[in-house]
């Protein structure tokens, strides 16, 4: 089954990376890279996102032209910082990967629709 992993955290948590000393940043990124190496045979797509203030939202409206605005479509305390897609036999495997994630924050694991 294919699962989407949404890596979420607060904006403060994400900005914290910008203030880290070089060696600590390298250690954290190394741990994350190690995770992707460990699960390399299962992860089919992945990526880190810029902060939500870099987002642009296009909202479709019935009977009106799409509305383009700056910023994310949902204002929330926690925002999506990155994502990956993994193909594993069952939910427990996906949850084991999420438990093992070294980057902190919150991870939403959601199955793709079949077919």
């Amino acid at each position: 089954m294919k699962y989407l992993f949404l890596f979420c955290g607060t904006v403060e948590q994400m900005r914290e990376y910008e203030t880290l000393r070089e060696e600590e940043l390298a250690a954290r990124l190394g741990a994350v890279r190690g995770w992707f190496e460990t699960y390399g045979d299962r992860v089919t797509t992945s990526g880190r996102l810029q902060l939500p203030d870099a987002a642009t939202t296009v909202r479709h409206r019935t009977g009106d032209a799409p509305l383009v605005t700056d910023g994310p479509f949902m204002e929330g305390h926690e925002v999506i910082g990155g994502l990956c897609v993994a193909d594993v036999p069952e939910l427990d495997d996906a949850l084991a990967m999420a438990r093992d994630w070294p980057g902190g924050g919150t991870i939403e694991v959601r199955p793709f629709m079949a077919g």
Partner: protein
Amino acid sequence: MDPAGALRDALGPVTGALVRALGDFELAEDVAQDAAVSALERWPAEGVPDNPRAWLLTVARHRAIDRWRREARLRALLPRLDAAEPARDDRLSLLFTCCHPALAREAPVALTLRAVCGLTVAEIARAFLTGEATIAQRIVRAKRRIVATGIAFRVPAPEHLAVRLDEVLAVLYLLFNEGYLASAAAERPDLAADAEWLTAELATLMPGEPEPLGLLALIRLHGARRATRFDARGALRPLRAQDRSRWDHAAIAAATGLVVRAGRMGRPGPYQLQAAILACHAEARSWEETDWLQIVLLYDELLRRAPGPVARLNRAIALRYVAGPERALAEVDALADALGGYHLLHATRAELLRALGRPAEARRADERALALTANPAERALLEQRLA
């Protein structure tokens, strides 16, 4: 065997076999329940068949064929039904599936009672004093979620087992507690019996795991004292005031044997430790002769593994007999923030304050406890103390 008992024994394995054969939890559970309804209609009049599992499988197969006529998807699944035979650990797989942590918090207990124990929606609704519609919806949602999220039907792989076994034990413990000291009735012996039966199954099917044995011992040690838990008027009788000659000493010895057997595996855990604490109480000849120091040490060990304010409160009760009521009261007061809404914190404070010769404060604490519990047997005990 009576029809209900025979159905209860047969339905879990049959449901498990169907889930395994069809690979679709929702569908398998539906046809198994259809078969159970037929059994409840026919067995009381016609007698329980020689092989209840085979009977249920045949009816379930017919139900699936009926559905097949309506639904094309089933055509591909149907041949697998011929191969459906209940296997030894189907019921265990079912239990693990029903208790998956990814299900809504209130779903596992209801789903377990329905799919593994074969209770009807009406029976589950009665047990939890909830409407049938609520329970039915809870079960339907959980079944859909099992299918949608990709929860597998099998005993978890070894690397997932530890975290999943904890979840199953937690559900069984919750079920037992609800039966033993229900939130709104004095007790629900049927729920406690279901919890004991499932835990015994779990312990049999996983002989190398010590914690199921620990939970089983815990349940049976509580059960061995059942005859003395309530006084003639239905008020809860505290341990100290129970007539120990009326306890089931053979059951206590057997359950203590389980604690020892689990202990030999060398992997202590919260349920084994709680069972060991109960065994200390059960084996003591009187309240005064209880080995309180041993109990405090067991609580220390328990708190190291499973820190929690309720265990700390219970430790404080034992500490009173090791270090005196003043030390115990200080411990209890330290828990006021965490357990301010828990009636037993205030009931315990009341006892300690009385022991320290502070009756006015004790009374206020008892009043506070009374305001916080709805269980009739506990209310009766507190009302006696206030009278």
